[in-house]
């Protein structure tokens, strides 16, 4: 039985240094399209690195999305994290003292190859904490046919963006219609579980950060009230479901697929691939439903404000264990990390129709990325101005997440449920923010 | 009016292994109003089952049960105006004794003060005052049984059903309870049906006694009648302690030949049995009709048997003596004054005035 991995990686087996890698099942095998699964792609890379380094053995585990992070949390807090772990930016990992900054292990070449956005996403305290795998752009999504019926110039929107008013007019028009089952159609839908959509709208209303690096809270003023009022009006007018408070992202997609929604947020480039697959299945008669011409849409911006695209990305982190296993082990782990995040690894992003973080990868898999399509061009355009979410030093990040969990999220939910007015909402979360940040 | 009447009652149980078990077979009898009727019979003969049918806890397979004038076949136990003492006590384990006693009254919405009074009364009758606040599991077997009796007493119904209520009590309390029950009976004017296997209880308490065996009623009669004129060997052997002696014999004019002796019948008996002259019979004689000749003022002329005693048991005022007569073992009960000893020879007089004869085939009394 193999007792090595995760927790106590690094034990020598046959004299080999064992490196553990934990990641997630980003995509499955698809026999119809000969698409390999993420794990198969990863294993290929691992095989290569093992072949190049006979002293290293790599054990990998594909966690489940549902509870993987929690498993990692337990392992990390037990002092036994895997050597390499896939995650988005999490300042709390840095604070544990077990995350290893990568600056010393990466060559200038590598750093050069990475898109600046990808580096920014994982830079904190001036150090790079993970090698990003891709640039995950946050966008809205739309049903081209429905939008055009409502008089929208979709191509133009994708190219030049749109204002709140333009968006509102189109959405309102769509919400006047009924779908083929005779059900009411909404112009816009989004999940009401957290404040994500609101964040996106705030960024496009001139407030880029909730909390700035100097610890100041920016969601305390008229801009926030204005944005909330905009959302409120959409709900009041039936442009957006008044039950938004109880709608989750799965439900939003379900509604979109059933043509009950014209525009929704948030989604991302990966949805293009899902939609293509779904259309193919409908063609093949495997799935019943209407084919949808799916388009990625930019976030609308308020009149006079700059359009801001948001993005993030996941990357591979390097960790050491509490009972430190020596520099050699860390170096070996870094070697593995470098290889499995190398140019070839961009296949992962490309398979999901997400722009890889490496420029070399974008080139290598350009055919997979279908950059010539409307959605592809939109992605390329967006890459130029996308900014990461707020990166704060770990301590401030901790406070920020407290403000979010104890103030913003619950109050925002209260607002969506119609229990708080926009003014009350802002007032109340500002109070929480003040007390946390003081 | 609380007459209880059984009319051709049959009760069958479904047994998983053995199919139908007939526990009571075609039983008919009437318990008169205010009568004290006792059921006796060997274990498993259907006494409890009969009682339960009166209570309405078991519904008869066929036949009718009346209480008073009322056909109660279909009346719920609580509407039958009865109280019952269960053989296994069936005390409510979680209630104190006080609560156990008061439960029935509480259900009948009796005022609190009255309940208390009745409980105290019953408690003093049964001398259980000091147990009132205990739980059943803290009591000894006999104490539990007294509580079970108390539970019936406080209810004061028109028919009392007792299933061996005294079997676990000590002799003294038993006598006391017997008298209490007797008085209760008189005082309350209630009809009582009482199941027991105790001779003395049956004979002293019962105005009439029902003897059962194997689900069938053998005889219903007053204690004297039962004792003096048992209708068959079963009854004769069952009533009386020690039981009647049965000796195989042959009737021959005024003589009765047993394996070892020949007895001379009194004249009235000769007349009575003349039809059976020359036939094989079973000769029944009760232990107390076997007397030590040395205690007799007048020495009898015949029917004296000389034998060696096998066993002698002391019962205070009396002796139980055991000796053999051919294959039959015979028991006698003589006054302790006779001072008999085991293994010593003795002369015993068989008083045939109260003898019985039975048909060896039908076992009926002749």
């Amino acid at each position: 039985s193999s007792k090595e991995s995760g927790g106590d990686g690094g034990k020598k087996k046959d004299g080999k240094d064992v490196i553990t890698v934990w990641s997630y099942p980003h995509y499955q095998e698809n026999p119809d399209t000969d698409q390999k699964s993420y794990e198969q792609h990863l294993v290929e890379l691992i095989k290569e690195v093992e072949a190049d380094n006979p002293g290293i053995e790599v054990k990998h585990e594909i966690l489940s999305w549902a509870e993987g992070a929690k498993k990692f949390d337990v392992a990390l807090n037990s002092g036994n994290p895997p050597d390499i772990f896939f995650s988005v930016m999490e300042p709390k990992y840095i604070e544990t003292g077990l995350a290893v900054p990568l600056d010393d292990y990466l060559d200038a070449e590598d750093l050069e190859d990475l898109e600046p956005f990808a580096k920014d996403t994982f830079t904190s305290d001036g150090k790079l904490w993970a090698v990003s795998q891709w640039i995950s752009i946050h966008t809205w999504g739309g049903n081209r046919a429905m939008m055009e019926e409502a008089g929208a110039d979709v191509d133009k929107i994708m190219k030049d963006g749109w204002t709140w008013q333009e968006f509102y007019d189109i959405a309102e028009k769509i919400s006047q219609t009924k779908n083929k089952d005779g059900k009411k159609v909404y112009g816009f839908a989004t999940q009401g579980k957290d404040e994500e959509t609101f964040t996106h709208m705030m960024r496009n209303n001139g407030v880029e950060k909730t909390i700035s690096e100097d610890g100041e809270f920016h969601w305390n003023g008229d801009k926030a009230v204005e944005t909330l009022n905009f959302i409120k009006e959409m709900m009041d007018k039936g442009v957006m479901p008044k039950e938004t408070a109880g709608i989750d992202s799965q439900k939003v997609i379900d509604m979109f697929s059933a043509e009950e929604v014209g525009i929704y947020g948030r989604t991302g480039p990966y949805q293009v691939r899902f939609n293509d697959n779904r259309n193919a299945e409908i063609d093949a008669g495997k799935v019943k439903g209407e084919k949808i011409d799916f388009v990625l849409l930019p976030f609308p911006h308020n009149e006079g404000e700059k359009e801001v695209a948001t993005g993030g990305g996941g990357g591979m982190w390097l960790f050491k264990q509490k009972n430190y296993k020596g520099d050699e082990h860390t170096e070996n782990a870094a070697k593995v990390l470098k290889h499995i995040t190398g140019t070839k690894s961009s296949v992962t992003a490309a398979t999901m129709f997400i722009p890889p973080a490496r420029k070399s990868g974008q080139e290598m898999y350009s055919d997979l990325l279908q950059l010539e399509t409307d959605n592809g061009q939109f992605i390329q355009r967006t890459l130029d101005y996308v900014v990461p979410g707020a990166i704060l030093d770990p301590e401030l990040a901790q406070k920020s997440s407290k403000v979010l969990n104890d103030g913003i999220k619950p109050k925002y939910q209260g607002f969506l449920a119609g229990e708080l007015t926009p003014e009350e909402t802002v007032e109340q979360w500002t109070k929480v923010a003040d007390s946390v940040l003081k | 009016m609380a007459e209880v009447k059984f009319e051709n009652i049959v009760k069958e149980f479904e047994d998983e292994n053995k199919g139908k078990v007939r526990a009571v077979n075609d039983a008919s009898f009437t318990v008169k109003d205010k009568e004290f009727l006792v059921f006796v019979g060997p274990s498993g003969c259907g006494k409890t089952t009969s009682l339960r049918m009166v209570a309405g806890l078991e519904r008869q397979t066929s036949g009718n049960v009346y209480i008073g004038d009322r056909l109660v076949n279909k009346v719920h136990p609580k509407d039958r105006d009865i109280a019952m003492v269960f053989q296994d006590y069936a005390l409510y384990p979680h209630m104190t004794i006080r609560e156990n006693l008061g439960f029935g009254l509480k259900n009948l919405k009796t005022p609190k003060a009255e309940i208390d009074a009745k409980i105290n009364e019953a408690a003093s009758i049964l001398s259980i005052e000091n147990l009132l606040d205990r739980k059943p599991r803290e009591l000894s077997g006999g104490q539990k049984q007294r509580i079970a009796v108390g539970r019936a007493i406080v209810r004061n119904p028109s028919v009392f059903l007792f299933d061996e209520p005294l079997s676990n009590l000590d002799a003294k309390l038993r006598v006391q309870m017997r008298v209490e029950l007797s008085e209760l009976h008189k005082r309350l004017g209630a009809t009582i049906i009482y199941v027991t296997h105790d001779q003395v209880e049956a004979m002293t308490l019962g105005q009439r006694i029902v003897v059962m065996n194997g689900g069938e009623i053998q005889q219903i009669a007053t204690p004297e009648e039962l004792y003096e004129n048992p209708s068959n060997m079963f009854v004769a052997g069952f009533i009386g302690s020690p039981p009647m002696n049965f000796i195989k014999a042959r009737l021959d004019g005024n003589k009765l030949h047993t394996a070892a002796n020949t007895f001379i019948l009194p004249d009235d008996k000769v007349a009575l049995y003349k039809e059976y002259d020359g036939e094989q019979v079973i000769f029944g004689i009760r232990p107390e009709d076997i007397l030590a000749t040395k205690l007799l003022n007048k020495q009898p002329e015949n029917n004296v048997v000389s034998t060696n005693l096998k066993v002698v048991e002391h019962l205070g005022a009396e002796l139980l003596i055991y000796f053999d007569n051919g294959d039959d073992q015979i028991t006698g009960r003589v006054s302790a004054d006779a001072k008999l000893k085991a293994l010593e020879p003795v002369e015993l007089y068989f008083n045939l005035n109260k003898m019985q004869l039975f048909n060896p085939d039908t076992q009926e009394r002749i």
Partner: protein
Amino acid sequence: MELKPATDNQYQIKLDEKKDLQRQAIKKIGLIIIYIFLGLWAIFTFVPLLWMLSSSFKDSSAITAVPPELFPTRPTLDAYKRIFEVGGLGRWFLNSTIVAGISTIINVFFAALAGYAFSKLRFPGRNAIFWALLASMMIPGQVTLIPLYILVVNTFQLENTYIGIIVPGMISVGSIFLMKQFMSSLPSSLIDAGKIDACSEFGIFWKIILPISKPGLAVLGIFTFVAQWNNFFWPFLVTNTNSMRTLQVGLTSFRFENMQDYGAMMAGAVCSAVPMIIVFLALQKYFLRGITIGAVKG
């Protein structure tokens, strides 16, 4: 012995018969009401499961159909095919069976042993120990997770082994508590009888207490089995190869980041329910037996 045909008597009989008929009727109606109510309640509790079952036969579009279809219009076995195609389903089943089976046996045995000691034996410290056990149940498991993980994985090195999965669940205070409650109503005199019959202390437990505790053991058995079978998080923490995964851990691979394979999840849930239903049906016949009846009087 003949019947007195007094008119009020006849009337009374009629009345009684009427009352009895009424009672029978009430009983019958009561029974009918009971059946109807239980039936409705069963449907109530069934709806979620029915949805689970029917979803497992739907294609992905039908699952998300608005309005939802309670019964699939185009039933398909695709979801089942998907979960069977993913490697390791059989292995996961085997692992779950081993883990749940062994934990159940150990758990029930220990619980019965300790429950017997706590309910029927008298020894110094009995109540204190029992309360210590009980109190531990009252602290939520979240905080002991890290220490426990350190203990099992770092200290005992039991990661990715059956023992590692089973060990923390080998005793459960709840089970001990249940057995204690159950056994407290068994008649103590049977234990005395066993002592007289030259039975060892363990023999009394094994040959007398266990057999007459069958209803309790069966109940505890099914509870434990179900709990262990459905146990997800701990096996997920301590396993790291596909071959060691239990069914519940394995089935989570049908939950993806931006989309869930509902059909497969539901098919998985259905598959995982089947063994438990079998165990339930196998054990349920013991539930109702009042097995001690007839042991003692009074």
